[in-house]
């Protein structure tokens, strides 16, 4: 059996998640080969459900010169940019020489059954890039509008992210594992609200229909959104309150519709 060595150099959670569907498709395309996979973000590597012929291994950039290196920078800017290819997941398909799907495929997560609290709203406001994330006053205003007294609201973030004034500390979900956060998103009763960040990519991977995405004009919309997201798209920090509320309501309605169909 031939061995194909793929190394994903992206350390960011979101970028790694977006590469996963293309790697899976590649593995299925070459089902008679063994795919030796090294991802720089090992938590994402553990999180995803890989096909049987994928062998996840510890990331080592000095290992094996024959590795086919992939990464979001190469995918978006490395000469593989086709006119009709927008979302980074689709770019990864092109980078790996696969037929590009018309929609970005949903990454498949492994099952990690744990009991999680059910929040009415989950908000993932922060981003490493301050222009893409929300500012503290913006999050406070959003929490105010969503009615913290009537609704249980959780704030998602990484360890060390900013706290909000007067917000119940129990509802900060900072530094939790990706699998736990994915389960929280699935259990969320009304809407999961994210900026263009790792949580947005995780929401796509979690397959939730009630995802409200707060996007910014600093990158093309098709790079940020996914097929199930309800999106508000504006210049950084210029999101209209009424647009945001409409998008959150749309996300809530999507969940209601999805549940009604399932029932």
């Amino acid at each position, binding site marked *: 059996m031939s061995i194909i060595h793929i190394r994903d150099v992206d350390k960011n959670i979101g970028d790694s998640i977006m590469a996963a569907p293309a790697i899976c498709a590649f593995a299925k395309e070459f089902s008679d080969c063994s795919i030796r996979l090294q991802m720089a973000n090992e938590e994402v590597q553990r999180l995803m459900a890989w096909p049987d012929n994928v062998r996840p291994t510890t990331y080592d950039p000095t290992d094996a010169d024959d590795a086919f290196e992939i990464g979001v920078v190469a995918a978006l800017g490395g000469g593989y940019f086709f006119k009709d290819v927008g979302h980074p997941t689709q770019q990864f398909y092109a980078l790996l020489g696969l037929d590009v799907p018309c929609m970005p495929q949903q990454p498949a997560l492994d099952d990690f059954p744990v009991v999680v609290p059910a929040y009415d709203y989950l908000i993932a406001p922060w981003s490493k890039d301050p222009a893409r994330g*929300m500012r503290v006053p913006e999050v406070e205003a959003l929490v105010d509008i969503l009615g913290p007294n009537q609704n249980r609201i959780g704030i998602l973030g990484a360890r060390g992210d900013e706290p909000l004034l007067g917000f119940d500390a129990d509802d900060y979900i900072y530094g939790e594992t990706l699998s736990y956060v994915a389960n929280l998103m699935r259990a969320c009763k009304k809407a999961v609200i994210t900026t263009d960040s790792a949580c947005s990519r995780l929401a796509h991977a979690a397959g939730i229909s009630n995802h409200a995405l707060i996007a910014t004009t600093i990158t093309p919309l098709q790079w940020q959104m996914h097929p199930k997201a309800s999106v508000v798209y504006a210049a950084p920090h*210029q999101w*209209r*309150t*009424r647009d945001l509320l409409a998008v959150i309501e749309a996300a809530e309605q999507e969940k209601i519709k999805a549940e009604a169909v399932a029932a």
Partner: protein
Amino acid sequence: MKVVIAPGDVGGCGFYRLMAPFRALAESDGFELSIVDTVASPKITEADLVVFQRAHTDVVVEFMEALTSLDPTSAFAALAERTAAQYPEAQRPALKQGMAATAKALVARGGRPIVALESDDNLKSIPPRSAFFKIFGNGRPNTQRFQRAARAADFLVLSTEELREVYELDNPRSVVCPNAIEDKTFEAYCARFPSSFCESPKRIGQVRIGYVGSTSHVGDVATIVKPLQKVMDERPRVRVVFYGQDLRGLFKREYWARMDFDGATVAKTIENQRPSLFSDSLMPRYYEALANLDLDIALAPLERHIFNRSKSNVKVLEYTMAGVPVVATKYGPYAQYAQECPDGIVAVPPEDDRVWVRSLLDLVDHPQKRKALVDTSRAFIRGNYLMSAVLPRWRAGVLGYAHAMREKVAA
């Protein structure tokens, strides 16, 4: 009846003072309306009433003088001689011929059109900080030309009673016709931007306080720099937004990060799609831009200056149409508006910084008050400053005066 209007621009003046009211009048009264951008148009000599605006060039002024003279044949011949000297020799015969044809047409019809001149500003007293100060002002050539045109006109069409006093010595015959918003436009904006939008800040995490105005209002905004800085100190969520002219330079540098200038994009759009005089496409785009600034509070400051006494209240009408409550200086048109509709505007005594700060903070903190102001002001405008409400004054004023003057001229 044939009416010709010659708007001075494609912006607010041309629209509010000529295009919008005369189109409404033509529609309701069924007369023939033409819009021209040159005195060479043969429509002028055929018209019963011609309304000029911004008569700031010698040709227009002298044309008006010739048109209203007792002996148009010799007046146009003299005008042809004088103006021909300014043109290349090859064009002079055509110019003379054109003027002779105008005179001949007037003689043939056995009369002349009634000539009116429109103005909505006190051009004799431009504030020193205005961008137009070097162009206009008492004794300057452009103002002198305008005064000559005012004297030549049969009557003046003015926007406020105060302007009547300003121009009384130039021409005692004048009618006052107020600015108004077109009914359909107003109702469309009320539907698209309901006052319920005021119940929370229009952009998340911000309270946007804004000023919209052209380059002639530096002095007005300068009067409220300190109160605005104080409000930004007191409330971290406040952002100050300018549209039309970037006035951030009036403020201390430390505040610039919390201020926006939102005019560049629109200016570029307008540059790329410059409308012609025969369309009024600039104003719809302006209304749209204003409404999409998402202002939570609008500012209408005025410096105490004789020029501002005779201004109209159209800025308040526009802000209100866009669903934004207004804090204004209690001076000139806004003092009058506050008197007419006390609960529809917050009027602050001139140069009273503390009241400015108090009023703005009150509105920043109380969205319900913002909504109430918009509701009250919109209801008041519906009854008083929509085109349908002011059209009788335009009809009685302009058309009434034109009829009376026609009989007098014929006699």
